[in-house]
Protein backbone atom coordinates (compact mmCIF):
# COMPACT_ATOMS: atom_id res chain seq x y z
CA UNK A 1 0.00 0.00 0.00
CA UNK A 2 2.80 2.35 0.96
CA UNK A 3 4.58 1.58 -2.28
CA UNK A 4 1.41 2.39 -4.25
CA UNK A 5 1.11 5.78 -2.67
CA UNK A 6 4.72 6.57 -3.44
CA UNK A 7 4.11 5.77 -7.08
CA UNK A 8 1.22 8.20 -7.08
CA UNK A 9 3.71 10.98 -6.99
CA UNK A 10 2.99 14.39 -5.57
CA UNK A 11 -0.24 14.81 -3.71
CA UNK A 12 -2.81 16.67 -5.76
CA UNK A 13 -3.66 18.46 -2.52
CA UNK A 14 -0.79 20.75 -3.39
CA UNK A 15 -3.04 22.39 -5.95
CA UNK A 16 -5.74 23.02 -3.38
CA UNK A 17 -4.90 26.59 -2.33
CA UNK A 18 -4.70 27.71 -5.96
CA UNK A 19 -7.87 25.83 -6.86
CA UNK A 20 -9.68 27.19 -3.81
CA UNK A 21 -8.85 30.81 -4.55
CA UNK A 22 -9.61 30.35 -8.22
CA UNK A 23 -12.86 28.59 -7.49
CA UNK A 24 -14.19 31.31 -5.20
CA UNK A 25 -13.15 34.34 -7.20
CA UNK A 26 -13.13 33.17 -10.79
CA UNK A 27 -15.20 30.00 -11.21
CA UNK A 28 -18.00 30.72 -8.76
CA UNK A 29 -18.56 34.13 -10.34
CA UNK A 30 -19.20 32.39 -13.64
CA UNK A 31 -22.05 30.46 -12.07
CA UNK A 32 -23.30 33.46 -10.10
CA UNK A 33 -23.40 35.66 -13.18
CA UNK A 34 -25.59 33.18 -15.00
CA UNK A 35 -27.95 33.03 -12.04
CA UNK A 36 -28.00 36.82 -11.68
CA UNK A 37 -28.94 37.18 -15.33
CA UNK A 38 -32.33 35.75 -14.45
CA UNK A 39 -32.89 38.24 -11.65
CA UNK A 40 -33.52 41.88 -11.03
CA UNK A 41 -30.69 43.15 -8.85
CA UNK A 42 -29.89 46.79 -8.14
CA UNK A 43 -26.98 46.38 -5.77
CA UNK A 44 -28.92 47.72 -2.79
CA UNK A 45 -31.65 45.20 -2.09
CA UNK A 46 -31.48 41.45 -2.61
CA UNK A 47 -31.87 40.05 -6.14
CA UNK A 48 -35.29 38.71 -7.01
CA UNK A 49 -36.20 36.29 -9.75
CA UNK A 50 -37.57 37.69 -13.00
CA UNK A 51 -37.20 34.80 -15.39
CA UNK A 52 -36.27 35.63 -18.96
CA UNK A 53 -36.94 39.39 -18.70
CA UNK A 54 -33.28 40.39 -19.05
CA UNK A 55 -32.71 37.98 -21.91
CA UNK A 56 -35.69 39.16 -23.85
CA UNK A 57 -34.43 42.69 -23.35
CA UNK A 58 -31.06 41.63 -24.68
CA UNK A 59 -32.67 40.51 -27.89
CA UNK A 60 -34.38 43.86 -28.38
CA UNK A 61 -32.10 46.47 -26.87
CA UNK A 62 -30.66 48.51 -29.71
CA UNK A 63 -27.99 50.10 -27.51
CA UNK A 64 -26.59 46.68 -26.67
CA UNK A 65 -26.74 45.60 -30.29
CA UNK A 66 -24.88 48.75 -31.20
CA UNK A 67 -22.32 47.89 -28.51
CA UNK A 68 -21.79 44.47 -30.08
CA UNK A 69 -21.20 46.14 -33.40
CA UNK A 70 -18.71 48.60 -31.90
CA UNK A 71 -16.85 45.72 -30.24
CA UNK A 72 -16.61 43.90 -33.55
CA UNK A 73 -15.35 47.05 -35.26
CA UNK A 74 -12.68 47.48 -32.64
CA UNK A 75 -11.62 43.85 -32.92
CA UNK A 76 -11.15 43.98 -36.66
CA UNK A 77 -9.62 47.45 -36.89
CA UNK A 78 -7.29 46.83 -33.97
CA UNK A 79 -5.94 43.75 -35.65
CA UNK A 80 -5.60 45.51 -39.00
CA UNK A 81 -3.67 48.40 -37.48
CA UNK A 82 -1.61 46.72 -34.80
CA UNK A 83 -0.42 43.61 -36.62
CA UNK A 84 1.32 45.13 -39.66
CA UNK A 85 2.97 47.91 -37.65
CA UNK A 86 4.09 45.63 -34.82
CA UNK A 87 5.26 43.00 -37.28
CA UNK A 88 7.27 45.30 -39.50
CA UNK A 89 8.77 47.34 -36.67
CA UNK A 90 9.37 44.23 -34.56
CA UNK A 91 11.38 42.67 -37.32
CA UNK A 92 13.09 46.01 -37.91
CA UNK A 93 14.35 46.32 -34.34
CA UNK A 94 15.42 42.69 -34.20
CA UNK A 95 18.28 43.75 -36.42
CA UNK A 96 21.58 44.10 -34.68
CA UNK A 97 22.45 47.65 -35.68
CA UNK A 98 23.22 49.92 -32.76
CA UNK A 99 20.77 52.67 -33.66
CA UNK A 100 17.96 50.14 -33.80
CA UNK A 101 18.39 49.16 -30.19
CA UNK A 102 18.35 52.82 -29.23
CA UNK A 103 15.04 53.19 -31.04
CA UNK A 104 13.81 50.01 -29.38
CA UNK A 105 14.52 51.39 -25.93
CA UNK A 106 12.12 54.24 -26.66
CA UNK A 107 9.54 52.06 -28.41
CA UNK A 108 8.96 50.05 -25.26
CA UNK A 109 8.29 53.04 -23.00
CA UNK A 110 4.46 52.92 -23.45
CA UNK A 111 4.60 49.47 -21.85
CA UNK A 112 5.58 51.08 -18.59
CA UNK A 113 2.34 53.04 -18.27
CA UNK A 114 -0.93 51.73 -16.91
CA UNK A 115 -4.08 51.99 -19.01
CA UNK A 116 -5.22 54.74 -16.64
CA UNK A 117 -2.04 56.72 -17.19
CA UNK A 118 -2.22 56.39 -20.96
CA UNK A 119 -5.91 57.25 -21.07
CA UNK A 120 -5.53 60.37 -18.96
CA UNK A 121 -2.47 61.57 -20.86
CA UNK A 122 -4.14 61.25 -24.23
CA UNK A 123 -7.39 62.71 -22.97
CA UNK A 124 -5.55 65.86 -21.93
CA UNK A 125 -3.38 65.89 -25.02
CA UNK A 126 -6.53 65.84 -27.15
CA UNK A 127 -8.37 68.48 -25.13
CA UNK A 128 -9.92 70.72 -27.77
CA UNK A 129 -9.37 73.88 -25.76
CA UNK A 130 -5.95 73.55 -24.16
CA UNK A 131 -4.37 70.35 -25.42
CA UNK A 132 -1.25 69.73 -27.46
CA UNK A 133 -3.08 68.72 -30.62
CA UNK A 134 -5.28 71.84 -30.59
CA UNK A 135 -2.24 74.00 -30.03
CA UNK A 136 -0.18 72.41 -32.83
CA UNK A 137 -2.93 72.48 -35.45
CA UNK A 138 -3.61 76.09 -34.62
CA UNK A 139 0.01 77.13 -34.95
CA UNK A 140 0.67 75.12 -38.08
CA UNK A 141 -2.44 76.72 -39.58
CA UNK A 142 -3.99 73.32 -40.19
CA UNK A 143 -7.55 74.42 -39.49
CA UNK A 144 -8.87 71.64 -41.74
CA UNK A 145 -7.54 69.06 -39.29
CA UNK A 146 -10.15 67.99 -36.75
CA UNK A 147 -9.39 69.16 -33.24
CA UNK A 148 -12.30 67.70 -31.30
CA UNK A 149 -11.76 63.99 -31.85
CA UNK A 150 -13.22 62.71 -28.62
CA UNK A 151 -16.30 64.89 -28.86
CA UNK A 152 -17.16 63.94 -32.42
CA UNK A 153 -19.29 60.80 -32.62
CA UNK A 154 -17.90 60.03 -36.06
CA UNK A 155 -14.24 60.29 -35.05
CA UNK A 156 -14.10 59.22 -31.42
CA UNK A 157 -13.94 55.50 -32.13
CA UNK A 158 -11.01 55.87 -34.51
CA UNK A 159 -9.09 57.92 -32.01
CA UNK A 160 -9.77 55.27 -29.38
CA UNK A 161 -8.48 52.59 -31.73
CA UNK A 162 -5.38 54.70 -32.29
CA UNK A 163 -4.72 55.15 -28.58
CA UNK A 164 -5.24 51.43 -27.95
CA UNK A 165 -2.76 50.76 -30.74
CA UNK A 166 -0.31 53.19 -29.13
CA UNK A 167 -0.65 51.21 -25.93
CA UNK A 168 -0.32 47.70 -27.31
CA UNK A 169 1.85 47.87 -30.41
CA UNK A 170 4.98 47.90 -28.21
CA UNK A 171 3.86 44.65 -26.61
CA UNK A 172 3.35 42.90 -29.90
CA UNK A 173 6.56 44.42 -31.20
CA UNK A 174 8.32 42.60 -28.38
CA UNK A 175 6.76 39.34 -29.46
CA UNK A 176 7.77 39.82 -33.08
CA UNK A 177 11.24 40.95 -32.12
CA UNK A 178 11.73 37.80 -30.07
CA UNK A 179 10.33 35.69 -32.87
CA UNK A 180 12.48 37.32 -35.53
CA UNK A 181 15.60 36.98 -33.40
CA UNK A 182 15.13 33.22 -33.43
CA UNK A 183 15.49 33.02 -37.19
CA UNK A 184 19.10 32.05 -37.93
CA UNK A 185 21.01 34.62 -39.88
CA UNK A 186 22.42 31.91 -42.12
CA UNK A 187 19.08 31.47 -43.88
CA UNK A 188 19.14 35.09 -44.92
CA UNK A 189 22.72 34.86 -46.05
CA UNK A 190 21.91 31.83 -48.17
CA UNK A 191 19.02 33.67 -49.77
CA UNK A 192 21.24 36.68 -50.35
CA UNK A 193 23.66 34.52 -52.26
CA UNK A 194 20.79 33.20 -54.31
CA UNK A 195 20.05 36.77 -55.31
CA UNK A 196 16.87 37.34 -53.33
CA UNK A 197 16.15 40.99 -52.56
CA UNK A 198 15.10 42.32 -49.16
CA UNK A 199 11.39 42.25 -49.90
CA UNK A 200 11.61 38.71 -51.22
CA UNK A 201 13.53 37.61 -48.13
CA UNK A 202 10.89 39.10 -45.93
CA UNK A 203 7.99 37.46 -47.72
CA UNK A 204 9.59 34.08 -48.25
CA UNK A 205 11.62 33.65 -45.08
CA UNK A 206 10.60 36.00 -42.29
CA UNK A 207 6.84 35.81 -42.59
CA UNK A 208 6.47 32.05 -42.74
CA UNK A 209 8.90 31.53 -39.89
CA UNK A 210 7.00 34.05 -37.81
CA UNK A 211 3.79 32.12 -38.21
CA UNK A 212 3.61 31.03 -34.58
CA UNK A 213 4.19 34.56 -33.35
CA UNK A 214 1.60 35.97 -35.71
CA UNK A 215 -0.90 33.48 -34.40
CA UNK A 216 -0.10 34.21 -30.75
CA UNK A 217 -0.22 37.94 -31.29
CA UNK A 218 -3.47 37.74 -33.25
CA UNK A 219 -5.20 35.62 -30.64
CA UNK A 220 -4.19 38.11 -27.97
CA UNK A 221 -5.41 41.10 -30.00
CA UNK A 222 -8.74 39.58 -30.95
CA UNK A 223 -9.67 38.14 -27.58
CA UNK A 224 -8.22 41.15 -25.78
CA UNK A 225 -10.18 43.72 -27.75
CA UNK A 226 -13.40 41.85 -27.06
CA UNK A 227 -13.06 42.52 -23.36
CA UNK A 228 -11.29 45.85 -23.48
CA UNK A 229 -12.49 48.32 -20.84
CA UNK A 230 -10.07 50.46 -18.83
CA UNK A 231 -8.79 52.92 -21.39
CA UNK A 232 -12.11 53.54 -23.14
CA UNK A 233 -13.84 54.10 -19.81
CA UNK A 234 -11.32 56.73 -18.82
CA UNK A 235 -11.05 58.52 -22.15
CA UNK A 236 -14.67 58.72 -23.31
CA UNK A 237 -16.81 56.78 -20.85
CA UNK A 238 -18.62 55.27 -23.83
CA UNK A 239 -19.49 58.56 -25.46
CA UNK A 240 -20.08 60.83 -27.22
CA UNK A 241 -23.61 59.47 -27.37
CA UNK A 242 -22.96 55.77 -27.80
CA UNK A 243 -20.10 56.09 -30.25
CA UNK A 244 -17.51 54.23 -28.17
CA UNK A 245 -19.72 52.12 -25.96
CA UNK A 246 -18.20 48.71 -26.42
CA UNK A 247 -19.89 45.69 -24.95
CA UNK A 248 -17.94 45.63 -21.65
CA UNK A 249 -18.71 49.35 -21.24
CA UNK A 250 -22.37 48.75 -21.96
CA UNK A 251 -22.27 46.10 -19.25
CA UNK A 252 -20.63 48.45 -16.75
CA UNK A 253 -22.95 51.36 -17.51
CA UNK A 254 -26.05 49.19 -17.17
CA UNK A 255 -24.73 47.52 -14.03
CA UNK A 256 -23.14 50.34 -12.09
CA UNK A 257 -24.61 53.54 -13.47
CA UNK A 258 -28.16 52.42 -14.10
CA UNK A 259 -27.77 49.81 -11.33
CA UNK A 260 -29.54 47.21 -13.44
CA UNK A 261 -27.17 44.42 -12.49
CA UNK A 262 -29.48 41.67 -13.69
CA UNK A 263 -29.34 42.91 -17.26
CA UNK A 264 -25.64 43.66 -16.94
CA UNK A 265 -25.16 40.05 -15.86
CA UNK A 266 -26.87 38.88 -19.00
CA UNK A 267 -24.44 40.95 -21.05
CA UNK A 268 -21.58 39.49 -18.99
CA UNK A 269 -22.72 35.96 -19.79
CA UNK A 270 -22.64 36.81 -23.48
CA UNK A 271 -19.15 38.27 -23.05
CA UNK A 272 -17.88 35.11 -21.37
CA UNK A 273 -19.50 32.89 -23.98
CA UNK A 274 -18.01 34.96 -26.79
CA UNK A 275 -14.54 35.05 -25.23
CA UNK A 276 -14.56 31.32 -24.52
CA UNK A 277 -15.84 30.42 -27.97
CA UNK A 278 -13.39 32.70 -29.71
CA UNK A 279 -10.48 31.38 -27.65
CA UNK A 280 -11.38 27.75 -28.18
CA UNK A 281 -11.97 28.31 -31.89
CA UNK A 282 -8.67 30.07 -32.42
CA UNK A 283 -6.82 27.52 -30.34
CA UNK A 284 -8.37 24.69 -32.31
CA UNK A 285 -7.65 26.27 -35.70
CA UNK A 286 -4.08 27.17 -34.93
CA UNK A 287 -3.04 24.25 -32.76
CA UNK A 288 -1.83 26.75 -30.22
CA UNK A 289 -2.96 24.70 -27.27
CA UNK A 290 -0.60 21.86 -27.65
CA UNK A 291 1.96 22.62 -25.03
CA UNK A 292 4.98 20.48 -25.32
CA UNK A 293 8.05 20.64 -23.23
CA UNK A 294 10.08 23.23 -25.08
CA UNK A 295 13.25 25.14 -24.46
CA UNK A 296 11.57 28.50 -24.66
CA UNK A 297 8.80 29.43 -22.26
CA UNK A 298 10.54 31.29 -19.51
Amino acid sequence: MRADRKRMGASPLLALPALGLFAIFALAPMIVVVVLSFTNYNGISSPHYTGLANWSRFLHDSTTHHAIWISLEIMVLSWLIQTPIALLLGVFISGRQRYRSVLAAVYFVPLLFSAAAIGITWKNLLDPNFGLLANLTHRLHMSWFPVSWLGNPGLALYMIIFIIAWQFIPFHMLLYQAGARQIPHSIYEAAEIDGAGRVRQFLRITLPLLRNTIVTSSVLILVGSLTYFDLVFIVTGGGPGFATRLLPLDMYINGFERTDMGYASAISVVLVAAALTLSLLLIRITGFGRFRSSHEGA
Partner: protein
Amino acid sequence: MRRLFHLNIPGALAGLVWFAIVALPVYWMVVTSLRNQAGYLTADPLVPGKPTSAQYHRVIQVGFLSYLRNSSVVTFSVVLMVLVFALMAAYGIVRGRGWIASGTFRLFLLGLAIPLQAAIIPIFFIVNKLHLYDTLPALIFPTAAFSLPIAVLILVNFLRDVPAELYEAMKIDGASEWQMLWKLATPLSRPALLTVGIFTALGAWNGFLFPLVLTQSTSTRVLPFALYDFQTQFGINVPAVLAAIVLTTLPVFALYLLGRRQLLTGMTAGFSR
Protein backbone atom coordinates in the same frame (compact mmCIF):
# COMPACT_ATOMS: atom_id res chain seq x y z
CA MET B 1 31.58 46.03 -46.14
CA ARG B 2 28.40 44.20 -47.00
CA ARG B 3 26.76 45.71 -43.86
CA LEU B 4 26.78 49.18 -45.36
CA PHE B 5 24.69 48.11 -48.29
CA HIS B 6 22.06 46.78 -45.93
CA LEU B 7 20.97 50.29 -44.98
CA ASN B 8 17.20 50.01 -44.95
CA ILE B 9 15.97 53.48 -45.86
CA PRO B 10 12.21 52.91 -45.85
CA GLY B 11 12.61 50.92 -42.66
CA ALA B 12 14.59 53.64 -40.99
CA LEU B 13 12.07 56.27 -42.04
CA ALA B 14 9.13 54.26 -40.73
CA GLY B 15 11.11 53.65 -37.59
CA LEU B 16 11.67 57.34 -37.09
CA VAL B 17 8.01 58.15 -37.66
CA TRP B 18 6.97 55.66 -35.01
CA PHE B 19 9.69 57.03 -32.75
CA ALA B 20 8.06 60.45 -33.00
CA ILE B 21 4.60 59.02 -32.34
CA VAL B 22 5.85 57.34 -29.18
CA ALA B 23 8.21 60.00 -27.93
CA LEU B 24 6.09 63.10 -28.46
CA PRO B 25 3.31 62.37 -25.95
CA VAL B 26 5.84 61.18 -23.36
CA TYR B 27 7.98 64.27 -23.86
CA TRP B 28 4.91 66.49 -23.58
CA MET B 29 3.87 64.67 -20.42
CA VAL B 30 7.19 65.23 -18.67
CA VAL B 31 7.66 68.82 -19.82
CA THR B 32 4.12 69.79 -18.84
CA SER B 33 4.41 68.18 -15.42
CA LEU B 34 7.19 70.62 -14.65
CA ARG B 35 5.10 73.69 -15.40
CA ASN B 36 2.71 75.57 -13.19
CA GLN B 37 -0.93 75.94 -14.10
CA ALA B 38 -0.72 79.43 -15.53
CA GLY B 39 2.25 78.35 -17.60
CA TYR B 40 0.25 75.49 -19.02
CA LEU B 41 -2.51 77.74 -20.26
CA THR B 42 -0.24 80.21 -21.98
CA ALA B 43 3.10 78.67 -22.86
CA ASP B 44 4.19 76.85 -25.98
CA PRO B 45 3.55 73.21 -25.07
CA LEU B 46 6.69 71.85 -26.67
CA VAL B 47 9.20 74.28 -25.26
CA PRO B 48 10.07 73.58 -21.65
CA GLY B 49 9.63 76.50 -19.33
CA LYS B 50 11.45 77.10 -16.11
CA PRO B 51 10.98 73.73 -14.42
CA THR B 52 9.15 73.73 -11.12
CA SER B 53 8.54 70.80 -8.83
CA ALA B 54 5.42 72.48 -7.42
CA GLN B 55 3.03 70.00 -9.02
CA TYR B 56 4.92 67.04 -7.65
CA HIS B 57 4.71 68.54 -4.17
CA ARG B 58 1.01 69.14 -4.69
CA VAL B 59 0.42 65.54 -5.73
CA ILE B 60 2.28 64.20 -2.73
CA GLN B 61 0.38 66.59 -0.49
CA VAL B 62 -3.02 65.22 -1.50
CA GLY B 63 -2.20 61.75 -0.27
CA PHE B 64 -0.15 60.23 -3.05
CA LEU B 65 2.09 58.42 -0.57
CA SER B 66 -0.78 56.57 1.05
CA TYR B 67 -2.04 55.47 -2.36
CA LEU B 68 1.49 54.30 -3.14
CA ARG B 69 1.47 52.33 0.08
CA ASN B 70 -1.86 50.70 -0.79
CA SER B 71 -0.69 49.78 -4.27
CA SER B 72 2.50 48.30 -2.83
CA VAL B 73 0.63 46.25 -0.24
CA VAL B 74 -1.77 44.90 -2.84
CA THR B 75 0.95 44.13 -5.37
CA PHE B 76 3.20 42.46 -2.83
CA SER B 77 0.40 40.32 -1.42
CA VAL B 78 -0.84 39.30 -4.84
CA VAL B 79 2.61 38.33 -6.07
CA LEU B 80 3.39 36.33 -2.94
CA MET B 81 0.09 34.51 -3.06
CA VAL B 82 0.35 33.76 -6.76
CA LEU B 83 3.95 32.54 -6.63
CA VAL B 84 3.36 30.19 -3.72
CA PHE B 85 -0.02 28.85 -4.84
CA ALA B 86 0.89 28.53 -8.51
CA LEU B 87 4.18 26.79 -7.80
CA MET B 88 2.47 24.32 -5.51
CA ALA B 89 -0.24 23.69 -8.06
CA ALA B 90 2.22 23.36 -10.95
CA TYR B 91 4.31 20.94 -8.94
CA GLY B 92 1.23 18.91 -8.09
CA ILE B 93 0.20 18.86 -11.75
CA VAL B 94 3.60 17.90 -13.15
CA ARG B 95 4.55 15.40 -10.47
CA GLY B 96 1.08 14.11 -9.84
CA ARG B 97 -0.64 11.35 -11.68
CA GLY B 98 -4.21 10.59 -12.62
CA TRP B 99 -7.20 12.57 -13.61
CA ILE B 100 -6.97 15.07 -10.75
CA ALA B 101 -3.64 16.37 -11.97
CA SER B 102 -4.59 16.67 -15.64
CA GLY B 103 -8.07 17.89 -14.76
CA THR B 104 -6.65 20.69 -12.64
CA PHE B 105 -4.39 21.70 -15.50
CA ARG B 106 -7.27 21.78 -17.97
CA LEU B 107 -9.28 23.84 -15.52
CA PHE B 108 -6.61 26.50 -15.34
CA LEU B 109 -6.18 26.45 -19.11
CA LEU B 110 -9.88 27.09 -19.46
CA GLY B 111 -9.59 29.78 -16.81
CA LEU B 112 -7.24 31.68 -19.10
CA ALA B 113 -10.18 32.49 -21.32
CA ILE B 114 -12.43 33.87 -18.58
CA PRO B 115 -12.56 37.62 -19.05
CA LEU B 116 -12.14 39.65 -15.88
CA GLN B 117 -14.63 42.26 -17.04
CA ALA B 118 -17.46 39.78 -17.28
CA ALA B 119 -16.88 38.62 -13.73
CA ILE B 120 -17.01 41.92 -11.90
CA ILE B 121 -20.70 41.92 -11.16
CA PRO B 122 -20.70 38.49 -9.52
CA ILE B 123 -17.40 39.30 -7.80
CA PHE B 124 -19.01 42.48 -6.48
CA PHE B 125 -21.88 40.37 -5.20
CA ILE B 126 -19.55 37.82 -3.59
CA VAL B 127 -17.27 40.45 -2.05
CA ASN B 128 -20.30 42.12 -0.49
CA LYS B 129 -21.52 38.82 0.92
CA LEU B 130 -18.08 38.20 2.43
CA HIS B 131 -18.20 41.69 3.99
CA LEU B 132 -14.98 42.57 2.23
CA TYR B 133 -16.28 45.57 0.30
CA ASP B 134 -13.91 48.53 0.36
CA THR B 135 -10.97 46.65 1.85
CA LEU B 136 -7.59 45.82 0.39
CA PRO B 137 -8.28 42.05 0.51
CA ALA B 138 -11.20 42.78 -1.82
CA LEU B 139 -8.56 43.78 -4.36
CA ILE B 140 -5.98 41.16 -3.45
CA PHE B 141 -8.02 37.98 -3.72
CA PRO B 142 -9.68 38.51 -7.10
CA THR B 143 -6.50 39.89 -8.67
CA ALA B 144 -4.53 36.91 -7.43
CA ALA B 145 -7.22 34.51 -8.61
CA PHE B 146 -7.17 35.90 -12.15
CA SER B 147 -3.38 35.84 -12.27
CA LEU B 148 -3.27 32.15 -11.41
CA PRO B 149 -4.01 30.57 -14.82
CA ILE B 150 -1.10 32.13 -16.68
CA ALA B 151 1.19 31.59 -13.70
CA VAL B 152 0.29 27.92 -13.48
CA LEU B 153 0.71 27.58 -17.23
CA ILE B 154 4.20 29.03 -17.25
CA LEU B 155 5.33 27.08 -14.23
CA VAL B 156 3.91 23.80 -15.54
CA ASN B 157 5.71 24.35 -18.82
CA PHE B 158 8.91 25.03 -16.99
CA LEU B 159 8.70 22.22 -14.47
CA ARG B 160 8.01 19.72 -17.22
CA ASP B 161 11.57 20.32 -18.39
CA VAL B 162 13.07 19.29 -15.07
CA PRO B 163 14.53 15.81 -15.58
CA ALA B 164 12.97 13.10 -13.48
CA GLU B 165 16.40 11.84 -12.43
CA LEU B 166 16.90 14.84 -10.19
CA TYR B 167 13.79 13.92 -8.25
CA GLU B 168 14.81 10.28 -8.11
CA ALA B 169 18.16 11.26 -6.66
CA MET B 170 16.51 13.18 -3.89
CA LYS B 171 13.95 10.48 -3.26
CA ILE B 172 16.70 7.96 -2.71
CA ASP B 173 18.01 10.26 -0.04
CA GLY B 174 14.58 9.97 1.62
CA ALA B 175 13.08 13.31 0.73
CA SER B 176 9.30 13.71 0.71
CA GLU B 177 7.43 15.36 -2.13
CA TRP B 178 6.94 18.44 0.04
CA GLN B 179 10.68 18.73 0.63
CA MET B 180 11.41 18.20 -3.03
CA LEU B 181 9.05 20.98 -3.90
CA TRP B 182 10.83 23.53 -1.76
CA LYS B 183 14.39 22.23 -1.93
CA LEU B 184 14.57 21.27 -5.60
CA ALA B 185 11.78 22.63 -7.72
CA THR B 186 11.79 26.13 -6.27
CA PRO B 187 15.46 26.98 -6.84
CA LEU B 188 15.31 25.42 -10.29
CA SER B 189 12.27 27.47 -11.21
CA ARG B 190 13.90 30.77 -10.42
CA PRO B 191 13.78 32.15 -13.98
CA ALA B 192 10.14 31.14 -14.40
CA LEU B 193 9.26 32.49 -10.97
CA LEU B 194 10.88 35.78 -11.88
CA THR B 195 8.87 35.95 -15.09
CA VAL B 196 5.64 35.10 -13.30
CA GLY B 197 6.48 37.56 -10.54
CA ILE B 198 7.05 40.45 -12.93
CA PHE B 199 3.97 39.70 -15.00
CA THR B 200 1.75 39.37 -11.94
CA ALA B 201 3.23 42.43 -10.26
CA LEU B 202 2.58 44.61 -13.29
CA GLY B 203 -0.99 43.39 -13.54
CA ALA B 204 -1.63 44.06 -9.86
CA TRP B 205 0.11 47.45 -9.89
CA ASN B 206 -1.86 48.68 -12.91
CA GLY B 207 -5.21 47.08 -12.14
CA PHE B 208 -8.10 49.53 -12.56
CA LEU B 209 -11.40 47.72 -12.82
CA PHE B 210 -11.32 45.98 -9.45
CA PRO B 211 -10.51 49.19 -7.54
CA LEU B 212 -13.18 51.02 -9.50
CA VAL B 213 -15.88 48.59 -8.49
CA LEU B 214 -14.75 47.12 -5.17
CA THR B 215 -13.41 50.12 -3.26
CA GLN B 216 -14.70 53.57 -2.48
CA SER B 217 -12.84 55.46 0.25
CA THR B 218 -9.44 57.12 0.11
CA SER B 219 -8.02 54.75 2.70
CA THR B 220 -8.20 51.83 0.25
CA ARG B 221 -7.40 53.78 -2.88
CA VAL B 222 -4.68 52.48 -5.18
CA LEU B 223 -2.65 54.40 -7.74
CA PRO B 224 -4.47 53.75 -11.04
CA PHE B 225 -7.77 54.76 -9.51
CA ALA B 226 -6.13 57.73 -7.81
CA LEU B 227 -4.94 58.92 -11.22
CA TYR B 228 -8.49 58.77 -12.51
CA ASP B 229 -9.63 60.74 -9.49
CA PHE B 230 -6.84 63.30 -9.81
CA GLN B 231 -8.13 64.08 -13.27
CA THR B 232 -11.31 65.51 -11.76
CA GLN B 233 -9.71 66.77 -8.59
CA PHE B 234 -7.16 68.92 -10.37
CA GLY B 235 -9.37 69.75 -13.33
CA ILE B 236 -7.71 72.40 -15.38
CA ASN B 237 -4.41 71.91 -13.56
CA VAL B 238 -3.18 69.47 -16.17
CA PRO B 239 0.47 69.73 -15.05
CA ALA B 240 -0.55 68.33 -11.67
CA VAL B 241 -2.38 65.40 -13.26
CA LEU B 242 0.62 64.61 -15.45
CA ALA B 243 2.98 64.91 -12.48
CA ALA B 244 0.87 62.26 -10.75
CA ILE B 245 1.24 60.01 -13.79
CA VAL B 246 5.01 60.48 -13.85
CA LEU B 247 5.24 59.66 -10.15
CA THR B 248 3.12 56.54 -10.59
CA THR B 249 5.29 55.30 -13.41
CA LEU B 250 8.63 55.99 -11.70
CA PRO B 251 8.92 52.59 -9.96
CA VAL B 252 8.29 50.71 -13.19
CA PHE B 253 10.62 53.07 -15.04
CA ALA B 254 13.33 52.40 -12.46
CA LEU B 255 12.91 48.67 -13.10
CA TYR B 256 13.16 49.39 -16.81
CA LEU B 257 16.48 51.13 -16.40
CA LEU B 258 17.91 48.51 -14.05
CA GLY B 259 16.79 45.33 -15.75
CA ARG B 260 15.25 46.04 -19.09
CA ARG B 261 15.59 42.57 -20.47
CA GLN B 262 14.13 40.93 -17.38
CA LEU B 263 11.25 43.35 -17.33
CA LEU B 264 10.41 42.93 -20.98
CA THR B 265 10.68 39.16 -20.78
CA GLY B 266 8.39 39.23 -17.79
CA MET B 267 5.87 41.32 -19.62
CA THR B 268 5.56 38.92 -22.51
CA ALA B 269 5.59 35.99 -20.08
CA GLY B 270 5.18 32.75 -21.95
CA PHE B 271 3.59 34.38 -24.99
CA SER B 272 6.81 34.45 -26.95
CA ARG B 273 7.65 31.06 -28.36
